[in-house]
């Protein structure tokens, strides 16, 4: 397939999925719709995360900061502004924070970047809870004016579609190529004339804008928000986990993993919440060790590779147990000694 055919295929798949998701509230139960809402939220978050952090390999843990900022913007602005403007405002505020944060931390790579973004998230969370406690005098905020459930669902769906569509389109532009170049070798990209600072800041701000918009849209679902729910670092962690398990470099990986995880979460969390978290941890370890490309990189060759690995491992164990390894070593030793004699 040529690149153009790929584009058409991706857009068609997205179109089909969107149509199905739009129709969902018409026939599914309330429980299924609320599950789909969580699923859409994580699709938007992890697709937008993978768009910047996956391609450039800058591991950002700040998603929950942008999400929380969006949620707070919406909580403050909801009474005086119409719904669409609240969402846009949430996106803009989050993007502005991302530009400031990016200017400070985007020159650091790897673990330093991950740890710093995490620290900044916690800093913002503690700063806001301190501000609320000492200035506003409350811990949380109650949202009085709440739009229809239908509106929330469609808004989050729109955001998810925007996130996926952006990642389809961006990888075909000069901007997307620059991001990929930074991921492959940042110095080389710089040498080839990419203004890495601007590209990185713009990518980071774009990710943040989507996370902020999602936060603004989702905050009304809870009707009561406080810093510990909306700045919950777990939102950020889970976004990263979903993107990595699905395959941060791929287009559809985050979407597939988000669906798998939402189903897993809703079925397991109600009965045994710890079991859900345990399987999350175990899946993450296994996927990093045995499937570094993510779920979307799963091919028949992967299974063949695993089969060969297991066979090799099994023969090793059999040899060890039957004393074959020891005998082989003895034989080799004897052969070496003979060679020395002559």
């Amino acid at each position, binding site marked *: 397939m040529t690149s153009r055919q790929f584009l058409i295929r991706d857009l068609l798949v997205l179109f089909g999925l969107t149509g199905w998701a739009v129709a969902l509230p018409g026939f599914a139960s309330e429980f299924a719709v609320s599950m789909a809402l969580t699923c859409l939220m994580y699709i938007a978050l992890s697709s937008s995360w993978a768009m910047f952090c996956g391609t450039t390999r800058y*591991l950002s843990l700040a998603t929950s900061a942008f999400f929380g900022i969006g949620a707070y913007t919406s909580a403050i602005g909801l009474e005086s502004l119409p719904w669409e403007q609240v969402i846009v405002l949430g996106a803009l505020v989050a993007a502005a924070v991302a530009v400031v944060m990016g200017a400070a931390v985007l020159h650091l790579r*790897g*673990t330093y970047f991950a740890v710093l973004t995490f620290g900044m998230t916690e800093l913002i969370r503690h700063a806001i809870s301190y501000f609320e406690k000492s200035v506003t005098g409350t811990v949380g905020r109650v949202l009085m004016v709440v739009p229809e459930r239908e509106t929330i669902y469609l808004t989050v769906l729109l955001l998810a579609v925007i996130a996926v569509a952006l990642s389809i389109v961006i990888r075909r532009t000069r901007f997307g190529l620059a991001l990929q170049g930074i991921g492959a070798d940042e110095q080389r990209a710089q040498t080839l004339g990419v203004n890495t600072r601007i590209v990185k800041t713009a990518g980071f701000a774009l990710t943040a804008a989507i996370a902020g918009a999602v936060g603004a849209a989702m905050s009304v679902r809870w009707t009561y928000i406080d810093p510990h729910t909306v700045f919950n670092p777990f939102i950020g962690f889970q976004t990263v986990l979903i993107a990595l398990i699905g395959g941060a470099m791929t287009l559809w990986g985050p979407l597939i993993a988000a669906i798998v995880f939402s189903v897993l979460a809703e079925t397991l969390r109600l009965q045994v919440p710890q*079991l859900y978290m*345990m399987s999350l941890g175990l899946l993450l370890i296994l996927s*990093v*060790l045995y499937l570094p490309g993510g779920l979307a990189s799963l091919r028949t060759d992967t299974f063949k590779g695993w089969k060969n690995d297991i066979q090799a491992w099994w023969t090793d164990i059999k040899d060890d147990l039957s004393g074959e390894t020891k005998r082989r070593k003895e034989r080799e030793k004897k052969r070496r000694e003979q060679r020395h004699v002559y």
Partner: protein
Amino acid sequence: MSFSAWLELIASGLITGGIYALVALGLNLQYGLMRILNIAHGEFLMVGAFLTWMVQTSFGLSPLWMIPVSFALLMGLGIAIHWLCFRRLTATSPNLDVFEARGLMVAFGLMFLVQNVISYVWGGDLRGYDFLTQPVQIPLPGGEAQFAANKLLVFALALVFAGALIVLLRQTLLGKGVRALMQSPIGAQLVGIDTKRLHPLMFGIGLGLSGVAGCLLSMAYTISPSMGEPYTVTALIVITLGGFGSMGGALAGGLLLGVIEAVGMHFTNPSLKALLSYVVFISVLLLRPEGLFTRKSRKA
């Protein structure tokens, strides 16, 4: 504020700081030596604390006996985890950057796994036991200060462990090998250091130290399955202050952080404590990423 009040404030800061330094030792070994940013460090500390609590409440054994036991148990666990996860990771990662990122992810997985196994087994309640809770008078110039005996004990043992580790790294052949490994893994292999044996051993010792820290902490504080994360963050702050891989730096960084927090809390207000430590953390990472006490700048 009078002179003696200042002294009391600084002394209480130093005691908390000693505990911070103790918490950071294991993580410092793991990150400084092997570039494994073990974000699950606090969870293993929590495992040590729960083991101590369980033995203390069900058999009535003194928690002091649990120090070597939890060290040995967690060291075994650490060697097993290294064998299961990080051995393959080292073999399959193309370069150090990729290894660091993947190691961080594996550690995240471990964090979820361990924390939830413990809360599944023991439940999420706050727990604790009484051990040496009577106050001790300490004469300071210009007055007396009171501290709980268990905190003083923890402080003293923290200093002993930090000192022992520094001596081990400076004076013994094993320590020499470890320091060589910190400077250059390939160079260390070239001069005949068996990195394949040293790596699991050091990872195990790192976890063992976190077990000891948990055991000591359970004497003075209440424990719960979610106690790990704040300690991980504290440990991260301390090793950034002290410079990655430097044990003396970690000790000094821990004490400094304790004093900063105590003084800062006295002059502002206690709910700013977390905010304060994050501000210190971020400013150190941004302004002096190689640590406050290192003279030569290392490649980050």
